[in-house]
């Protein structure tokens, strides 16, 4: 394919006087994992939520190459169509599992919701699929009827991922997916994510303030500061030879750890 999967042009978003995203443009190519890094408050979450259609940017042209090679204008799309896309071809993993899970229904129902929303009406089939995905994210299938609140933070995050992947999306947006987790739990989740993304042939946009996470997962890197993209390139290049002074600072501080 010689078309980008996802293309963002001139995206801006203000909150009052705060310019959270300032005229951002980039492409994502099929099969690519794009990392967006930058310190807290640099506009990463706002950018991710804007391009995934969760909030409305003030200005942007966003296009997505849908299944069957249909080019879709996301910024013009009406809400029912957008929602359909969000629950079929796309996935969104929130930083806090509680924002991405239904805490008051079982793990199985959490995974099954997207299937049911897409018309699945056979209980046993839904259940089998839920078990398959619990196992794929390394949660004991015996926990299928348990509430997420009885799960550890790492398990909740894996459940959120399973809930998202169950419809075989093509593009996954992740906001600090390893954010609130212990270091050892982070490592396991990262391994799992890397494996899933590779095995399922997913394209992904991953926001993180953690360069180590970005290095492990992404092919390409965008560095953000004060709502602007200040550096953009292949991950290895950016990390080995950062151009912007800010990126140099970021890289030197992180890679010592």
């Amino acid at each position: 394919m010689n078309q980008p999967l996802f293309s963002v042009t001139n995206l801006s978003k203000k909150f009052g006087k705060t310019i959270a995203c300032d005229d951002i443009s980039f492409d994502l190519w099929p099969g690519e994992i794009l990392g967006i890094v930058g310190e807290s408050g640099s506009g990463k979450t706002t950018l991710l939520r804007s391009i995934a259609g969760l909030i409305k940017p003030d200005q942007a042209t966003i296009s997505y190459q849908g299944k069957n090679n249909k080019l879709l204008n996301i910024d013009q799309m009406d809400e029912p169509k957008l929602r359909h896309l969000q629950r079929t071809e796309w996935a969104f993993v929130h930083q806090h599992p509680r924002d991405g899970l239904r805490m008051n229904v079982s793990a199985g129902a959490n995974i099954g919701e997207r299937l049911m929303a897409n018309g699945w009406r056979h209980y046993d089939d839904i259940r089998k699929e839920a078990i398959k995905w619990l196992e794929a994210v390394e949660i004991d299938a015996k926990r299928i009827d348990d509430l997420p609140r009885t799960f550890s933070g790492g398990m909740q995050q894996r459940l959120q991922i399973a809930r998202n992947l169950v419809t075989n999306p093509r593009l996954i947006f992740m906001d600090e997916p390893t954010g609130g987790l212990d270091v050892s739990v982070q490592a396991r989740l990262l391994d799992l994510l890397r494996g899933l993304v590779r095995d399922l042939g997913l394209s992904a946009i991953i926001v993180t303030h953690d360069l180590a996470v970005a290095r492990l997962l992404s092919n390409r890197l965008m560095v953000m500061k004060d709502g602007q993209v200040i550096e953009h390139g292949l991950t290895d290049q950016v990390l080995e030879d950062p151009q912007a002074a800010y990126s140099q600072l970021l890289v030197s501080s992180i890679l010592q750890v």
Partner: protein
Amino acid sequence: MNEIPPKEPLIETIIEPATQIDPNYNFAYLNEQTKKMIRRALLKAVAIPGYQVPFAGREMPMPYGWGTGGVQITASILTPDDVLKVIDQGADDTTNAVSIRKFFQRTAGIATTLNTAAATVIQTRHRIPEQKLQEGQILVYQVPIPEPLRFLEPRETETRKMHAFEDYGLMHVKLYEDISQHGHIATTYAYPVMVENHYVMDPSPIPKFDNPKMNNNPALQLFGAGREKRIYAIPPYTKVVSLDFEDHPFEIQAWDQPCEICGAEDSFLDEVIMDDQGTRMFVCSDSDYCQSRSEVQS
């Protein structure tokens, strides 16, 4: 089983005639402007079957739990020639039913009845009469919580969108949870339905036994939620389907025995305690249905 002969129509004998209106009230309590506003909401509700129409509900001289939503609808549709029946859990003689009936006798001076067939308007809490309703009849339901998606999605902005976009995965999540916890769909009251292939609707806390009666019913069905100020409707002969799974199909309640008073096998039964020895009996919850069947037999 005894052969039960078909029921005779006894209509003339069972209507309690019109009474004197209390002159301190406008007809049926509400002022004409309020009634017009409610009728407009009703027309919209009828035009979009199953859709919840907001309305500027009025304070009624009774607490919300007493069916103020239903009372406001009834007040807005009554005409002096109507014959009103009021039931609560199938019975005409409970405090709630009696007081609403008296309220309209006093404020509208209309005739009332206990007999389903003789009524033109039936206000109900928690049941649909066993006797088949007819064209021209109106069934008014008292609704405590109109939003079927509320328990899983508390945000009103979100549930509105789910309805508008027919984004109803969540409704099946509830049924899924039922099965995963109980092995079957354990929801027995307020069992969700889909109206005319679009809106998912809470039928109010009627037993699921009554759900099939809503489908293709010749009568007009109106639903009023007083506290939440919502009105919705099922026009006559509308398709109403109870939600389910292919491998766990919708089923109504069934009993191992007929009604111990009238012998009905097709009626919703309540278990009642008959004396202070704790003797239990299964009898029709619809007292008019049970009585009229027993009268015919004796």
